[in-house]
């Protein structure tokens, strides 16, 4: 069955602080260590598409408001 939710992370806004990754209850986020944005920073992305439960933890902790969260409509 499809994920409860998903997130979109702005590559250029993200500063790669990793706080979202740390606080995702379902470990579906990660830093992209192989690529950097124009500021030379690794950015976070959704690694595991189906695990997101739209709990908003990442968007709450994200200092730079780089994350959009979407929730499955019941």
């Amino acid at each position, binding site marked *: 069955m499809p994920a409860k939710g998903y997130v979109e992370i702005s590559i250029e806004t993200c*500063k790669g602080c990793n706080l979202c990754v740390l606080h995702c209850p379902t470990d579906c986020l990660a830093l992209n260590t192989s690529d950097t944005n*124009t*500021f*030379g920073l690794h950015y976070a992305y959704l690694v595991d598409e189906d695990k997101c439960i739209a709990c908003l933890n990442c968007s709450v902790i994200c200092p730079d408001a780089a994350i959009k969260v979407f929730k499955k409509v019941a």
Partner: protein
Amino acid sequence: MLLEMIFAGFGGQGVLSMGTLLAYAAMKEGKEVSWMPSYGPEMRGGTANCMVNISDQPISSPIVSRYDVGVVLNLPSLKKFESRMKNGGIFIWECTNIKQPPTRSDIQVFALPAVEKANHELNNVKVMNMIVLGALIKINGIVKKESLLVALSETLPERHHHLIPLNKQALELGESLV
């Protein structure tokens, strides 16, 4: 002889220490030197740079706007300083990080994959700046490698002296790249 140089990149790429080492080495060789860093809060996260002047006579102005030598380790710096190079100036750019090459044809351009080399051949990206330095002195011989090594041992705190051999390797690797 007066050489006016700029070293620029992201904070943390070691551009300031590059400049310092070079200035120190030159001083050891009896030259007059000046080293002027960018400073202030805008540095945070952003890019850092330092201007280094080396000369036989006392240096009148430590701040210069056009350069004989430019070393850039990120794109913003390349964009900012390419245009400020004097004709025929030496312009070294790090081509692992930077994807857009310089465009001027009236300067001597050297592309250096220092990051990649540092990662793969010395597996320590930190010494990337020493590779660049090695290349630079090979190109224009401002100072002797020996002077740089002296500079290293005199400026590096004791507890880091074990790193000197690695830095020496990096210098030589740099020399070999041009």
